[in-house]
C-alpha cells in the first residue's frame, strides 16, 4: 500500500493546485480539506460492496482522484547484509475521466493528471532517495494493465516476456534493476477490496501481492550488489481523502517467518485513532482485522533531523497469538521529497520473527 499518506498527496496536490489555481495556497487549506478543492466533481467514490477486477485494476483508474503502485522489498546481499528498497508511483487526477472515453490530445500538454514517483534504498544505516514528477496525458508517465507497465521517465515497472516484472530505477549515484516473480493471488483488504479509512465509512480500494520473490542488482556509489529476497506490492485508489483532524499515518507490511503476512495501519486523529489491518495465514487465508482485535503502541522514539519519530512499536493481536515488537534499524529513513515522510525496513521480534516495511507520515 503506502499511504493514504496524506503528506505525499498533499505535496502533489499542492503542486497541481499551484498550477491550476494560483489563488489557493496549499498552506491555507488543511490537508484533509484539500480534496474538496480539486476541480472535477464527478470523481467516483469507492464504497463497501465494490469489487476488484483483474487484470484491469493493475492499470489506472481515471475516474478516481488518487492512486498508487507501491513496492517494498526486504533483500539480502551476497554477503548476507540486509538491504531494503521502495518504489512508489502516484497518480493525482485533476479531472475525472471515463476509462472508455477519449484521452486528451498530447499536443495540448493536458493537465488532467500529475504523476510522481519515489524510489529509495536503505542499506547499512544509510538512505538513498529520489523523486520524479511528470504531467499526465503526454506519455512521459503512465500505467497500463495489459501488458502491465507503470512508468515515469526512465523509471519503470513492467512485465517481461518470462512473465516476471522488471523494476528499473536510477537516482543520483545509485540505481537498481530488479526482477520480481509473483506467487499467489492478490490479497483483497477489508474482505473484498474495500478498505475503510474511518469509522464513518470513507475508504479506498486496496489489494496487495504479498508473495514476491525478488532478485537483481543494486548499485550504490559505484558498487554493485547482487541482491535477493522477498517483497510486497500494493495497489490502492480512492477519491475521498481522509477526514479533517486526521494527522498522519503509521503503516506496516510484515513478512513473518511463520509464513503469516500482516498489513496494519493506524490513522492518527484527535478523537481516537482508526486502526485496521489484514492477517494472511500461511495457507493464504485472508482475515480482516478490526480495531477491537489488536493494539499498536509506540515503544521507542528516535530523535532525527526532521523531528521525533517512533521507531519501535509493539503489536498485540490476541486472536492470532501475535505479541511482538517491530523496529527500524539504526539510521534515518526520511524520504525527503516535496513532502518528507519516513519509509524504513523493519525487523520483527517477539512471539513472531520476521521483517517488513514501515511508513510513517505526519511527524
Amino acid at each position: 500500500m503506502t499511504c493514504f499518506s496524506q503528506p505525499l498527496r498533499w505535496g502533489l496536490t499542492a503542486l497541481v493546485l499551484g498550477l491550476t489555481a494560483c489563488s489557493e495556497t496549499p498552506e491555507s487549506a488543511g490537508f484533509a480539506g484539500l480534496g474538496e478543492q480539486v476541480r472535477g466533481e464527478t470523481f467516483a467514490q469507492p464504497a463497501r460492496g465494490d469489487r476488484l477486477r483483474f487484470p484491469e485494476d493493475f492499470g489506472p483508474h481515471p475516474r478516481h482522484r488518487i492512486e498508487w503502485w507501491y513496492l517494498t522489498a526486504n533483500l539480502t546481499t551476497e554477503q548476507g547484509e540486509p538491504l531494503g528498497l521502495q518504489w512508489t508511483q502516484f497518480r493525482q487526477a485533476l479531472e475525472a475521466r471515463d476509462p472508455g472515453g477519449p484521452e486528451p490530445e498530447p499536443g495540448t500538454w493536458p493537465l488532467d493528471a500529475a504523476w510522481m514517483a519515489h524510489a529509495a534504498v536503505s542499506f547499512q544505516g544509510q538512505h538513498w532517495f529520489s523523486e520524479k514528477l511528470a504531467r499526465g496525458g503526454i506519455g512521459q508517465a503512465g500505467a497500463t494493465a495489459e501488458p502491465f507497465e507503470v512508468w515515469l521517465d526512465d523509471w519503470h515497472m513492467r512485465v517481461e516476456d518470462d512473465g516476471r516484472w522488471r523494476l528499473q530505477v536510477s537516482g543520483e549515484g545509485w540505481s537498481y534493476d530488479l526482477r520480481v516473480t509473483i506467487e499467489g493471488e492478490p490479497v483483497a483488504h477489508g474482505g473484498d477490496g474495500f478498505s475503510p479509512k474511518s469509522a464513518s465509512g470513507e475508504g479506498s480500494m486496496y489489494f496487495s501481492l504479498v508473495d514476491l520473490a525478488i532478485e537483481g542488482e543494486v548499485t550504490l556509489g559505484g558498487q554493485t550488489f547482487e541482491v535477493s529476497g522477498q517483497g510486497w506490492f500494493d495497489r490502492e485508489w480512492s477519491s475521498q481523502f481522509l477526514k479533517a483532524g486526521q494527522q498522519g499515518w503509521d503503516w506496516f507490511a510484515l513478512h513473518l517467518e511463520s509464513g503469516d503476512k500482516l498489513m496494519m495501519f493506524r490513522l492518527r486523529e484527535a478523537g481516537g485513532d482508526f486502526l485496521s489491518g489484514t492477517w494472511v495465514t500461511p495457507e493464504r487465508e485472508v482475515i480482516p482485522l478490526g480495531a477491537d482485535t489488536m493494539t499498536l503502541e509506540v515503544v521507542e522514539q528516535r530523535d532525527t533531523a526532521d523531528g521525533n519519530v517512533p521507531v519501535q512499536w509493539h503489536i498485540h493481536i490476541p486472536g492470532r497469538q501475535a505479541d511482538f515488537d517491530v523496529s527500524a534499524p539504526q539510521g534515518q529513513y526520511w524520504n525527503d521529497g516535496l513532502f518528507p515522510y519516513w519509509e524504513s525496513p523493519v525487523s520483527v521480534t517477539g512471539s513472531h520473527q520476521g521483517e517488513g516495511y514501515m511508513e510513517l507520515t505526519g511527524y
Partner: protein
Amino acid sequence: MTVFSALLSHYRRHPLQLLALALMIVLATMLWTGVSHLTDRARASLAQSERAIAGQQELVREDGQSVSVQDFAYLRRQGLCVMPWLEVERPAPEGRVIGVDPFASACFGNEAPGQARVDALNGEPFLDIAEAAEMVRQGSDGQLSLLVPVDVEANAVPAAFRLKDFSMGPATGELGESFLLNLDALGVLVLLITALLVRSVYQLGLVQRRESFALLRRFGVPAARVQVLLLIEMVALTSVCVIPGIWLGRLLAEILGGGFGQVLESLFDAPLYAVAGDGFVLPALVMVSVVLLACFADKRLLLRLPWLSGRQSVLWFGVPVLGLGLAMVAWPFILGWLYVGIALVFVAVGLLTPRVLSHVAQWGVEGAGAITLWQRRELAVLFRRLALPVVALQFAVAMVLAVQALVTTFEDAFEQWLAQRLEAEFYVEVPAQSAVEDGVRYLESLSGLGDWHLVQRGTTRVVPEMAGDDAATSVEVDLFSISPIGPLVTGWTLLDATPDAWEKLAAGQGVMVNEQLARRQEYQPGDPIGFALGEQTLALPVVGVYADYGRPEGEILVAGQILPDTFNTRFQSLSLNPGTLAMAEIEQGLATVWNTDQLTVRDNSSIRSLASEVFDQTFLITRAITVLTLVLAGTSLLVMGWVFFTTRAWYYRLLFVWGLSRREVAGQLRWLAMFLTGAVAVAALPLGVWLTWTLVSRINPLAFGWSLPMAVYPGFWLEMLVLCLAIGLAIAVLMRRQLGAGVAAPAVANVSGGGER
C-alpha cells in the same frame, strides 16, 4: 565623572544637537537602505531573467522537423533531463509569454530556465505550458523548444537528435547591464550624498563641542584619547541609529517595490523575486563604515593629500578635474568611461561649488556699505561652513532636475510618438484562421470608410552581404509592414529621411528602420539594407529612420505589397477610422466575412491608456528615489542650517544689541537663509541641465539604443527654487524663535581656530 561622560555631557545640555545627528544618520541609513534594497531586488530579478535567457542548449531533430510533445516524452523516457519551452508571441500589449512545465523542469534544479517554479507561473512571462498551448491552438504563433541542462554532452543524446545552442529572447544583455549600472550609479550618488550629510552634521557637532574639548585638554586629557572616545561615541550612536534607519528603508522599499516589480516585468519580461539574505548586518556595516569614513577619514587620509587641504589648491585641483570629467562625458567610448566622467564632474563640482558661491557672495563688495558688506561676508562664511549640506542639496536638486527632465521628455516624446502611431481610431485583430484578404476586400467594398491600413508583423534577418555592407552584422529583427501606405502613417515624424521617403516606401523602392537598428548597424538614409523575406532576400535602400521607444529590438518597416506569400506573418491587424460608418457595422461585416464571432477590437484610447500605464510604472522607481533623496537633502539642510545658524545666534543678536530692531534682525536672517538655499538651487541648475543632457544624449543611446530630444523645463526649475527658498524661510523662522530666547555667548574665538569665518 569619567572623560567619556564628560564628553557626553555636552549632549545633555544640547539634546537638539544629538537629535539632529541621530536624525541625520537615521534618514541617511533609510535612504541608502531603501535604494540599495531596491537595486538589490532589481539585480536579483535581472540575474534571474538573464539566467533565464542565457547559456542554454536545446535538442533538435536530426531530420529538421520541429520537435513535438512525443519527442519530449521519448527523450524523457530515455532518461534525459529535458524541459519543454513553448514561446508564444502575441500582439501587444500582451507580448511574449513562455509556457513551461514545472514538473519537467524539476530535474534542472536551481538552474531551471526561467526559474519555472509553480509560484512563478503568473503569465509574466511564464505560465503553464497547457495554457500556452491553448493560445497556440487559438491562433497565436508558438514555437516549442526542448531544453536540456548545459552540462548534457553530445554523446548522451539519442540518435535522432542533436544539441544546439538556445537563445531565449532578444539580446537584452547590454540593456540589463546598463539598467543595473544606472541603478548602481544612482546608489553611489545616494551614498555620496549620505556621506556628505553625515560628515556635515558630525563636523558641526565638533565645532559646537570645542568648549568641552578645550576644557578636557586643559584638564590634561590627550587629544588622541578624545579622538578615540569620539570614535567610540560615533560607532555607538550609528549602531543605534542604523537599526530604525534600515527598518524604515526596507519599509519604504517594500512600499515602492510593488510598483517596481511591474516595472521590471514591463521592461524585461522578468518577474520580480524576493532577495535572499535580507540581513541587517551588511547594511549596518556599510552605514557604520560610511559614517566612520565620513567623520574620521580626513584625520588619516585627507591630511596626507596636500593638494586637497589648501584653499587655493581646491581650485587647482577642481578645475582640471571638472574639465577632464566634462571631456570624458562629451566623448564617451563606453558606458563605464562615461560613468567615471560623471563621477569626476560631481567630485569637482562638489569641491568647487562652496568656493565659487563664497566668492560670488563677496563679489564686488569692496565699495559697498558696511551692512551690505556684513551680509555678503556672512553669506560667504555660510557657504563655506555649510559646504557639505550645501553640496548635498545641490546634488540632490540636480538629480531631481535631471530625472524630472528625462522622465518628462520621455513622456512627451512617448506621447507624441504614441499619438502618431495611434492615428487610427480602431484596431481589429485578424483572427488566425481567417483569410486577411477577405477582410481587406470587404473594407475596400465599403463606401464612406475613413483611412485604413493593414498591419502585418513577423521577423526577418538582416543579410548584410546582400547589400555589400561589411559594417553590419547578421541579426534577427522585427518586420513590420503596412499596406496601403496612407495618411495614417505619412504624418509620422521621421528622425532622418531621404526626400520622398514615404513615396519610395509605398512604391516598394525602400524600407524604413527604427532608431535602434539604425544606431546599432549605423544605417543612414540612402544606405542599402539586405534582409530575408520568406524564401527570398532583398536589398533596398533605407529611406527613413523612425523613433521606436521603449524596447531594444531592431525593426524594419516595409510596404505590404513586397511581402511574399511565403512570409510567415505572426500577427495581422487592421487599423481604421470608421469615417461616416458605424464601427459596430464594420465589426459585424468583418466578423461575417471571417466567419467568426470573436473579433478582437481595440479602440485608440484603451491602447493609449495601457501604454501610459506601462510607462508610468517604468519611471516610478526613479522618481521615488529622487524625491526621497531630495527630501533627505532638504531636511538635512534645514536641520544643519538651523543648528549652524544657532551657533551664530550670538552674532545675530549682536545686531540687535547694536540697535537693529527684532524685525530688522529677522529680515537679515531671512535674507541670509533664503539666499543660501536659493543659491543652492541656482547652483544645482547647470549641474542638473548637464546631467539631463548626459542622460538623454549619452547614457540612453549607449544603454538603450534610442535617444531623446533634449528639453528643459523652467517651470520645474521654479518649483525647485521655491522649494529651496521655503527651506531657507523655515530656517529663518526657526532662528527667529531661537533669538527670542536668551543667547549664550559663543566660545572664545581663538579656540575655534577660525571656524567662525
